[in-house]
């Protein structure tokens, strides 16, 4: 078996469109974003700049603007865009029949 665990975290409707929810799993805090066109992305809820809660930022396109100092983070890669450098850990996430499943590496989940 793989060492990644898929968790059901809720349905698409649980996340506001152009918004995000914070998900707590096994000591991890993950921001799960839903874009205007219903794509879902998951990043560690920590801005690579100074740890701002990305789930509270303004989601535009496939990017989120960090609420603390406005770094713009790419949802697909977790990477800061523009002149800024840094990367938030991304987690695999998928939508299955309206259910959102989030993948957390088992080792990580267990260790923390």
């Amino acid at each position: 078996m793989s060492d990644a665990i898929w968790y059901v975290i809720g349905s698409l409707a649980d996340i506001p469109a152009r918004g995000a929810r914070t998900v707590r799993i096994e000591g991890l805090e993950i921001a799960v974003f839903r874009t205007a066109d219903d794509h879902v992305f998951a990043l560690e809820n920590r801005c690579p700049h100074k740890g701002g809660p990305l789930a509270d930022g303004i989601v535009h396109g496939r990017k989120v603007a960090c609420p603390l100092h406005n770094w713009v983070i790419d949802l697909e890669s977790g990477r800061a865009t523009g002149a800024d450098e840094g990367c938030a850990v991304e987690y695999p996430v998928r939508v299955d029949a309206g259910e959102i499943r989030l993948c957390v590496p088992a080792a990580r989940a267990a260790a923390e």
Partner: protein
Amino acid sequence: MKKLVVIGAGMASGRALEHLFEADPAAYEVTLFNAEPRGNYNRIMLSPVLSGEKSYEEIVTHDDAWYAANKVTCRFGERVTAIDLARKVVVGTEGEVAYDKLLVATGSAPFIIPVPGKDLPGVVAYRDLEDTNAMIEAAKPGARAVVIGGGLLGLEAAAGLRLRGMEVTVVHLMGHLMERQLDEAAGYLLRKDLEKRGITILTNASTKAIIGSGRVEGVQLDDGRTISADLVVMAVGIRPETTIARAAGLEVARGIVVTPQMVTSDPDVLALGECVEFQGQLFGLVAPLYDQAKVVAATLTGKGASFAPKELSTKLKVTGCDLFSAGDFSEGSNREDIVLRDPARGVYRRVVLEGDHVIGAVMYGDTAEGSWFFDLIRDKADVSAMRDTLIFGQAYQGGSPLDPMAAVAALPDEAEICGCNGVCKGTIVAAVKDKGLTTLEEVRAVTKASASCGQCTAKVEQVLAVTLGDAFKGSARKTMCKCTDLTHGEVREFIRSKSLKSIPAVMQELGWKTSCGCASCRPALNYYLVCDFPEEYQDDGRSRFVNERLHANIQKDGTFSVVPRMWGGLTTAAELKAIGEIAEKHQVPLVKMTGGQRVDFLGIPKERLTAIWKDLNDAGMVSGHAYSKGLRTVKTCVGKSWCRFGTQDSMGLGVKLEKLMCGSWTPAKVKLAVSGCPRNCSEATVKDIGVICVDSGYDIHVSGAAGLHVRATDLLCHVDTEEEALEVSAAVLQMYREDAFYLERVYKWTERVGLDTVKAAIVDDPASRRAYHERFLVSQKVAQVDPWAERVAGLEAQEFTPIVIEPRLAAE
């Protein structure tokens, strides 16, 4: 001959049989089951049948003669209830049939949202001829229909019912129509077209229940509204019809799982159509089903073929609503958007590029180029050579790209520059030369070019530059952001003159260069609309910064601060006690007096906010809006009631001002103070609006600041009574609200427009002052709600609660 049994006579199996008989008419003896009491017809043409543009007979694709000629045993009107894979038989309601090969083509079933009343007579889905006939039956002119679901099917149903004279309302859960196929901008145009034909559209509307005793009478929404209805059409989506396949033990995920050869987990059973799932993908349009049909025929006749899904395109079959959507059109960091809008013609066109390839396209109004873009997407064509002209379509390709200046210089005099007002280049050049014009504003005033939607602003400026040559001073204009060539002021004017009442409306009608704006223009537009249409505009929380969305200030560690109002800086022993108890109860990490004469709780986690607000509400306190571009504080000094120098009741006036103004949204934050005498203990002369009480009345000051800039106020006027002080303050605030640019504080605004302009409107002209005051009161009627109380009562509960997962594992 081998025996082939087919379950479902739909569009997919119909096409598969055609290919099979073509390839080898003698290969199989076919038995065809269909639950519907008829053979195959063109399901997608049910919409023209509904609207009356076609009859059922015209959409039949396979008639009795065809089935007879191909020796198909038809068991129409007979549902298959079971498949026995071990014995290789299919069980119909009227008996078994044995097979050598089985083809499952059961299509899909409409999804019915599980709300109370869903089974009432008068509630129909939209899938087959029975549904269509039920709708036609109900469609008496003047009768009312509610269509739940603003997707492809729902809108075709709505348009058809409307053509039959019904009063139609579409209830759609999402923010814009057809959100899977269209972006917000195209969704706006579609909505406008549908509304023009008399269809009512409700977005962000969630159905709570269908009501009626014995028969449907209406639809109740989550927000409490009820819409009466004689007919309710549910068109919210489809689910693959997999019941018998699952029961038989075939592998089923969301759909019946098939290989690229369209074979299921049983080697003698094939499946195709909307009932299958291929590599995690489901199908809801006919194009891929027809590809599958070819593969099925090949597999059945022993030829190798593989199914590979291709990009899809969508159109809506509503006459007059021209839309096209294909591929993936979401934004991304490595993606580039090219947008073309023609507000005058209601045209929107957007092409999404990734690297040198077109990966998606959305268009509305003029879809003639749709198939060309679709080819570019499917062929993964390299478009780097035509990037600059790509958006204009195929006819514009081939020429060498010009820089915009050279292009404008090369235009003939009769070339039209401003489409709205029909101003051509020659007119502008002549005006510039003859009248000695040097700025865009002058050109606009004289020629009317760019005075209507503003989209040609950049072009008009280029004509000006080309005409003036070196004498052109360059543009001093500061556009709102990279999404538009218009300034804040121009956008505000257009919003009013064209009565644009939503963000997508502004973006389309003013020719925004991006599809949905950015984090800089969205909050500005949201404010402008809140300000101009207080009673109509639906605030877009998603266009607000976190503090205004959560009604608390975010802190460096992601916690929040909570600042309740203390009117005029006044409090009571009871209030302080309650504050102490609440701080203790919730273990508030830090309690601080702010620089604004009130208390701040710091370090509150998001999920505790509503609990604290509730306790504060219960103790009689409300939000202090310490987080808003809105009224913050009104500081006061003790004034005449206690102070030996006090001249007027500064505390009383401060409280009245705060009660009058709290809750209002403004371009930037607004702070007031009232001092009881010119000693000015409440620092009124560094506030946006400051009142200094004097023996003879009140000096009203404006435009102070003590932040990044320290600036003393200017005297606006003197008034004799408290009543006048309140009216002048509110009027000046309203003028600022209506006139300033987003994020421009009062002092910057007055420096831009000149204090005299403000004096003229507020001091010298009593009628104008009263009008501003009146408009302020109207907007306050809507704005003066305690956002905390609303959220304590459950509004936007999602925003405040994280999803916490007890380790519940998904199926591996």
